[in-house]
């Protein structure tokens, strides 16, 4: 490598330190945090497994084989089989795809809506009242009847378009629009507090635009509660989905997600404990690893921590 390139590389690292790109932050965060490193490893493994796994392990998760019911671990069926003789590993892999996708999509949706409403309400006094009334309205809507109605009303329309995608979109939308309110309220509270701080007051008096203040001063200062919300949000979405399964409103039984698999396996806990251990473990590990990453990110991003 030539000297020139070295210099350029050094320069970019220097730049990165002053104006860190998001990926840089992630890297710095993980480097300094053992738990997060393990978490990221586990999480990457899970994501890769559910993405690539079904391409390598090609057994149809819905294939019933009545000769091998309720089996333990074996070479044919590494995680055993369920009471219809369906392969658990194949179900876990395809279920994981849906569970993770639901978790992330619903979290992003709820976070996006929550942050926007929270910051705007906290920053612009004019909009505070109406937006908070809107939040109250959503908070006051009962989640279950709402989800029930949404799913029943639109299922057929979306089914015609694509049955699997349709129910997925419904559940994500359902969970997303019924879970953003806590984030919005917390973000608003934090925004109200940050707004009164000296540096924001200074920026305002210098005539900085509202948008600029929000993105440059307020958002970075309220990132930690957002991070916590995000990590809890993924878990929350996965849990809500399994709750819906428990109440018979979630994905249908022939469309297994981790939550659904856990629920279906619960009756068999004494016969084949593997049916609850694997989905339970998968959900816990995902939530746990996401949470560790979230912790590390918060430490890295929070300017007050970074300055030390």
């Amino acid at each position, binding site marked *: 490598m030539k000297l020139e390139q070295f210099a350029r590389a050094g320069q970019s690292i220097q730049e990165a330190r002053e104006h860190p790109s998001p990926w840089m932050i992630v890297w710095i965060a993980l480097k300094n945090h053992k738990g997060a490193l393990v978490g990221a490893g586990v999480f990457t493994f899970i994501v890769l497994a559910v993405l690539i796994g079904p391409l390598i392990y090609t057994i149809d998760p819905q294939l019933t084989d009545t000769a091998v019911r309720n089996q333990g671990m074996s070479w044919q069926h590494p995680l055993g089989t369920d009471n219809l003789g369906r392969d658990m590993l194949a179900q876990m892999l395809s279920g994981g795809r849906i569970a993770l996708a639901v978790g992330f999509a619903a979290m992003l949706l709820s976070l996006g809506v929550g942050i926007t409403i929270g910051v705007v309400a906290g920053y612009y006094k004019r909009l505070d*009242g109406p937006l908070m*009334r809107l939040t109250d309205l959503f908070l006051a809507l009962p989640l279950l009847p709402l989800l029930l109605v949404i799913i029943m009303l639109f299922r057929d329309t979306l089914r015609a378009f694509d049955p699997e995608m349709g129910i997925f979109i419904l559940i994500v939308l359902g969970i997303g629009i019924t879970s953003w309110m806590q984030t919005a309220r917390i973000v608003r509270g934090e925004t109200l*507090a940050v707004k009164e701080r000296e540096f924001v007051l200074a920026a305002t008096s210098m005539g900085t635009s509202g948008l600029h203040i929000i993105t440059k001063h307020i958002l970075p200062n309220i990132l930690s509660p957002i991070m916590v919300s995000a990590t809890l949000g993924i878990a929350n979405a996965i849990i809500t989905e399994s709750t819906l399964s428990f109440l018979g409103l979630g994905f249908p039984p022939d469309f297994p997600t981790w939550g659904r698999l856990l*629920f279906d396996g619960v009756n068999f806990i004494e016969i084949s404990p593997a049916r609850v251990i694997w989905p339970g473990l998968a959900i816990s590990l995902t939530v746990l690893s996401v949470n560790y990453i979230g912790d590390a990110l918060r430490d890295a991003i929070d300017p007050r921590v970074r300055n030390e």
Partner: protein
Amino acid sequence: MLKYLSKRLFFAVPTLIVISFVLFALLDLAPNDPTGNLPQTIPQEVREEIRESLGLNKPFHIRYFKWMQQFFVNEPLNLIEEVTGLEIGDSESRLRVRSWLTRSPVVDLIIERLPQTLWVVGLSYIVGIMIALPIGVISAYKQYSWFDQIGTFISMVGFSVPTFFTGLVMIIIFSVTLSWFPSTYDTTHVVKDFPSFWFQVKQMTMPVMVLAFYNAAQLSRFMRASVLENLNLDYVRTARAKGLRDRSILLKHILRNSMLPVITMIALGVPTIFTGAIITEQVFRVNGIGQLLITGIQSADIPLVQSLSFLFAVLIVTFNLLADVIYGILDPRIKYE
């Protein structure tokens, strides 16, 4: 402050009316049927008559206004009569909001359910808070210590495992194998002496623990995050520079400031006590408000679901207001105009 409060209260009324309308419309749109659980041998003609007798075939706006009148005028009047013993107007022919499932007044059903819900869900909320706060504070104060790692791990497990699963595991361990606790909750049990009190404790232990574990998991994460944030603020450094001991900084300053968002969280969560814990109530057969709601949803009991959901809405709006007021009192930086 007073002005702010009255303004908020003034806005609460239209909010609630809009909510009641949205709820009613949603429930009306949902394709559910109160005759769906009847035996297959009952023919369609009879089902149609049952729907007719429930008033289901009347136009939407008539049903909505009827519900409004029954809920906002007749029910409060009835409550006043029952409390004071006075008779106001023609109370005999005053129609009350009636559940389709039981044909009995919805308000009576709710009142019947309150004791077990408040005992089990309320107690679990308090236990959850008592577990979560110390764990959150210590985890933050000793960040990345073994205590923090284990605390984080346990609270995440508590949060990520659904209660229908933890509940069943507890039943299999403590009811089936050890026979320590009953697996079902007896709502007709009356506490009158020590043995009956002891039975009450035993039958509450498992549902309370399952729920408390779940509540504590969420709350301790927020507490930890909040304390962590304050630990790095300027005033802590100033206090340290002045030579104050860590312990007194933690207890006197950090705790007070970091409790702010957590108290908001706690206040916001109070309505969930009244809305019940649907799954835990199902698993242990506590049969409180949550179970009432899910029974109503499953059997398309619109008056019941509508009234319950609306009461939840009232509670939520009230506690949101309360949370704001508490925030304002505790944090002098926030000004209400």
